[in-house]
């Protein structure tokens, strides 16, 4: 790093009187500090740093064993609060049969992953996939390492493998009672190749899994030592404050660098643009505050392009206008729904709308990058270090093997930190800085206004009810509003589109997320039509916890509630009847089990005070391209004051666990997170577009849930299926909005058909 020492000393002077008045450069904190906390936390405060030493033995790319039996497990997924470091380590340790108290974790080397032919399988952390996709190969890695350690002991003793047992990292030769520890045989095991891979455990054989496990990284997050991307400090590092085109897809027309060049600490002004990089300007300085104040003082003129007058209301009008257009794409057609709807005595019809939503990660967007002739280094908290590396290489113009990405802790992800726009932008800036590292930090406002938003959406549902109040025919029409590139990217990420709709045509490639949650209804409806339109806007969209589903889940479960009320039935009983009546659905029994569990726990149907109501919703988060699902039912208990102020008192969740949960403690926290996030979105959040740009900016106009608004939460795990569930990271959030809005209806008789709730007058008598 000596190449960076040319930095002007004035830029980093800090004198520490208590330390004898000596000079200290603004360096990263000493390694010993990170290690000390790591002893407690079992992972470095800088998770990309290896905790292993030269005397430790790498048994496999996943497993390193020290002479004192400490086991270091390498983690390919990104920790953003979901407990994934602990869960991944558990899945591997379940097979390794080591002593859990001696397990440490560290992130895999992303660079090695590329150099060694994707040795860590997959490094993205999206789509609730860490357990669903990771479990088989992590278990296999643990089993394989265990068998090699056992083989090494067998060799040492010249004993057959069958005479050996292992527990907590101690191998015993049963006939003689001799023992060897993992630390003693690791060296030999590292050289052993297995003739065949061992079988892995089935869920009924799990011991470590299923039990709640304390989170390995929690201690780092109570003393300030967890290093998030924004905390990275490097010798000679510069800071950049950025402004990207306020109107998406605009350009920089001009800026007056001369106005700020001579300000204290300013290093340079650089422009950035490129493929999938929102064009903009950065001021680079010796501190973030110097950079930011200079940027604020610098006049910039923008070329707004062709979207400078686009707005949300226009997008909604465009969507509503196509509700009646005939040429749409058909997903499902069963029977003759049009004829039944035309002749039915009772038709229920409703139009629903939801706005764009932002992720609102607590850690503002940032990325630190250093670009030299033969090496690109990146420090960032990323949900997708694999694609971030690919993008960094592309922007820098180097092969991927020359990119070294150091993944940090993520101050919230929710899908936002898997778009790589932070990395592309930082590399575009860094490559103009002659090899100096630069930390790019966005303001909260920039973070809010340059998101990849959950797409807005409009839908219309029409149902013909028979004399018994049950639907005879049903027409669902959805109008999606996505950015051009969104759908196609997601399909690629999910491994291609499977046209698995039950009857009728396949969705167009890229449209999968628009129809999720509305295909293959488990409710009995003999005549069905489900079709859609897709419209494009210039607003960037991306995966927001649950990706394409949460909008549709609000529509569907609100509509079912409307049908129940139109039929004069109880909303819980109505769903129960519709599920029971569907002889084609293999899910019905399990759905009923979960639905009944939440109804029972909440004493559904009991008398409530005036202005208080309960609402129910259920679904299973099923995918088009996969068989996995997670059945979840939610009851919200909501009170509404006469003035119309909404208070969500309780949220009760019943969820299918399948045969196991990897870490019930982490699972509980995922429920809490999704309730909090779902409530903020339901009650108050909307991103609106005016003059082509985002109106909202910070927590005052885009509020997240406050402590005083957090409801009590009841969690009920139900084993309703025998296959592993799809996941839990985003399988609860979709039912929050319909449960709350159905409860508001029960409390006030006012039906919420568009979100957020704050836009509705809910005052009563």
């Amino acid at each position, binding site marked *: 790093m000596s190449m960076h020492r040319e930095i002007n000393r004035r830029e980093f002077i800090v004198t520490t009187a208590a330390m004898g008045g000596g000079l200290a450069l603004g*360096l990263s904190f000493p390694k010993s500090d990170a290690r000390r906390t790591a002893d407690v936390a079992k992972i470095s405060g800088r998770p990309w740093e290896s905790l292993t030493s030269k005397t430790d033995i790498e048994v496999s790319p996943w497993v390193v064993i020290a002479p004192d039996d400490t086991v270091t497990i390498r983690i390919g997924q990104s920790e953003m*609060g979901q407990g994934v470091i602990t869960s991944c380590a558990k899945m591997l340790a379940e097979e390794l049969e080591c002593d859990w108290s001696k397990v440490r974790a560290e992130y895999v080397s992303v660079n090695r992953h590329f150099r060694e032919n994707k040795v860590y399988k997959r490094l993205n952390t999206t789509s609730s996939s860490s357990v669903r996709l990771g479990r088989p190969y992590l278990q296999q890695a643990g089993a394989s390492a265990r068998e090699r350690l056992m083989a090494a002991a067998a060799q040492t003793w010249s004993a057959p493998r069958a005479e050996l047992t292992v527990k907590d990292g101690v191998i015993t030769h049963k006939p003689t009672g001799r023992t060897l520890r993992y630390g003693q045989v690791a060296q030999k095991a590292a050289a052993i190749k297995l003739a065949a891979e061992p079988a892995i455990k089935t869920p009924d054989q799990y011991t470590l899994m299923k039990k709640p496990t304390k989170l390995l990284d929690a201690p780092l*997050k109570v003393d300030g030592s967890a290093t998030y991307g924004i905390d990275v400090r490097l010798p000679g590092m510069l800071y950049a404050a950025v402004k990207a085109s306020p109107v998406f897809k605009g350009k920089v027309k001009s800026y007056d660098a001369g106005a700020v060049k001579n300000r204290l600490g300013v290093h340079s002004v650089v422009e950035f643009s490129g493929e999938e990089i929102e064009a903009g300007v950065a001021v680079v300085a010796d*501190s973030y505050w110097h950079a930011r104040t200079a940027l604020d003082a610098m006049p910039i003129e923008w070329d707004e392009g062709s979207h400078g007058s686009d707005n949300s209301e226009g997008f909604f009008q465009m969507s509503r206008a196509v509700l009646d257009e005939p040429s749409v794409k058909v997903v499902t057609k069963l029977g003759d729904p049009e004829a039944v709807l035309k002749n039915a005595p009772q038709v229920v019809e409703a139009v629903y709308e939801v706005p764009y939503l932002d992720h609102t990660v607590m850690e503002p967007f940032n990325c630190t990058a250093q670009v030299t002739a033969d090496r690109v280094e990146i420090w960032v908290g990323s949900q997708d270090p694999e694609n971030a590396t690919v993008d960094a290489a592309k922007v820098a113009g180097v092969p991927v093997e020359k990119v070294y990405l150091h993944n940090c*802790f993520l101050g919230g992800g929710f899908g936002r930190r898997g778009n790589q726009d932070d990395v592309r932008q930082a590399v575009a800036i860094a490559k103009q800085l002659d090899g100096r590292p630069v930390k790019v930090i966005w303001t909260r406002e920039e973070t809010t206004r340059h998101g990849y938003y959950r797409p807005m959406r409009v839908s219309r549902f029409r149902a013909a009810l028979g004399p018994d109040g049950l639907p005879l025919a049903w027409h669902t029409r959805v109008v999606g509003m996505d950015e051009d590139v969104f759908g196609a990217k997601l399909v690629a990420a999910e491994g291609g589109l499977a046209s698995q709709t039950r009857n009728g045509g396949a969705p167009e490639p890229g449209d999968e997320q628009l129809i999720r949650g509305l295909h293959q209804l488990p409710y009995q409806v003999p005549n069905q039509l489900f079709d859609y339109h897709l419209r494009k806007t210039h607003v960037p969209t991306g995966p927001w916890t649950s990706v394409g589903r949460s909008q549709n889940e609000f529509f569907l479960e609100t509509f079912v509630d409307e049908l129940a009320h139109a039929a004069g039935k109880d909303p819980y009983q109505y769903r129960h009847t519709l599920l029971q009546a569907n002889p084609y659905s293999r899910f019905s029994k399990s759905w009923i089990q979960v639905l009944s569990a939440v109804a029972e726990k909440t004493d559904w149907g009991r008398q409530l005070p005036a202005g208080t109501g309960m609402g129910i919703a259920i679904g299973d988060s099923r995918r088009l391209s996969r068989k996995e699902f997670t059945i979840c039912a939610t009851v919200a208990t909501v009170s509404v004051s006469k003035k119309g102020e909404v208070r969500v008192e309780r949220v009760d969740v019943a969820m299918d666990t399948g045969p196991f949960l990897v870490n019930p403690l982490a699972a509980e*926290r995922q429920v809490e997170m999704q309730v909090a996030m779902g409530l903020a979105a339901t009650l108050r959040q909307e991103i609106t577009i005016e003059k082509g740009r985002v109106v909202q900016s910070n927590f005052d106009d885009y509020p997240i849930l406050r402590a*005083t608004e957090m409801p009590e939460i009841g969690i009920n795990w139900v084993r309703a299926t025998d296959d592993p569930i799809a996941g839990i990271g985003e399988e609860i959030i979709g039912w929050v909005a319909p449960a709350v809005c159905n409860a508001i209806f029960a409390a006030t008789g006012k039906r919420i058909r568009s979100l957020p709730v704050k836009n509705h007058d809910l005052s009563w008598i």
Partner: protein
Amino acid sequence: MISLKVNRKTYSVDVEPETPLLWVIRDTIGLTGTKFSCGKALCGACTVHVNGKPVRSCVLPASQVVGEEITTIEGLSPNAQHPAQIAWREGDVPECGYCQSGQIMAAAALLSNKPNPTDADIEREITNLCRCGTYLRIRQAIHRAAQIAAKA
């Protein structure tokens, strides 16, 4: 040059007087446990103590705290043994963890002022935001911290 007392050490820092304390702590002194999130004193991620009272450092000019006792999460206790930190670990409070330094600093200030706070005290005094919704665990941890402190 201005002189700041942070975690019982005195630092002479070469910053303009109006620089927010947050950025002096993070960039100049190099203590990154205190977080930037909103920049407008809305969320509390940047909470530090000035003379034991919780303040939001992202809008506080450094010049206003010259000579005052400033404490950050790093200086809250030796070896992270403040009752709030113990309770936070016991209760596995943090999820993403980004807001938790600020939450703990706010909680520690509350506990020193009110050793046995009620739910209402917590609701009124701890207004820090958490996107992961750890609020219920924070409330439990504050009550637990009060117990730990009482026993000590």
